[in-house]
């Protein structure tokens, strides 16, 4: 299940969608949430907000493909991926990846796999807006190293 939306989300409600109370084969849920955080390197400015852009049509397809890859790799029960777009404030949640499974190890692997691939394969772009300046976020080479480790 994949959603791109402007609004925030409530983790508990999103979890209920993939762990309904009558699905008694599910033993494990692993959830990742990414937040808008303050600048790491630029100590002379403070982040005030973030603008997130995406490619309507392609981004949804990319997310669905990542979910399918994860389902092929691990015995997962259900997946819930939400990514926000538009203007987000400092401390807002950006992304949710929630995975249910019979066993915890598969849920951990699938959840981390999805967020790792989302970072390199799903067309989203972030612009950080500080009090003094704004700039598009630079690509993080570590994200590509992480994705390569899955192969």
């Amino acid at each position, binding site marked *: 299940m994949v959603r791109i939306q402007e609004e925030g989300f409530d983790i508990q409600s999103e979890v209920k969608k993939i762990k309904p109370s009558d699905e008694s084969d599910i033993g494990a849920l692993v959830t990742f949430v990414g937040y808008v955080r303050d600048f790491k390197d630029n100590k002379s400015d403070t982040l005030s907000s973030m603008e*997130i*852009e995406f*490619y309507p049509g392609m981004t949804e397809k990319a997310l669905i493909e990542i979910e399918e890859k994860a389902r092929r790799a691990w015995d997962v029960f259900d997946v819930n991926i939400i*990514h926000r777009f538009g203007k987000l404030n400092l401390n807002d949640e950006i992304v949710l990846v929630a995975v249910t499974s019979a066993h915890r190890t598969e849920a951990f692997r699938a959840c981390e796999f999805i967020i790792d691939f989302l*970072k390199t394969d799903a067309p*989203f772009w972030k612009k950080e807006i500080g009090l003094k300046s704004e700039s*598009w976020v630079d690509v993080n080479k570590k994200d590509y190293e992480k994705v390569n480790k899955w192969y």
Partner: protein
Amino acid sequence: MIKVLFFAKLREELRINELDIEYKAEVASIRDLISYLRQEYQQIDNVKNIKAAVNQELVLDWDLSLNDGDEVAFFPPITGG
């Protein structure tokens, strides 16, 4: 006709998000298309490591031929999540 889309920093540099280009020999591949665009939009080179998608699929081989009716997108590396 080829529909060309620009995103993020590239969209801002070029001050345009969408463009329709007549399908012709000069835009027969992604590489050709970007050379063609560069004539009018030199600012393309202000963005490093441009990525391309054809019909919403990332394309690594820029020599891929384009077809009439294709949707081609150019954008900087992905930074979501």
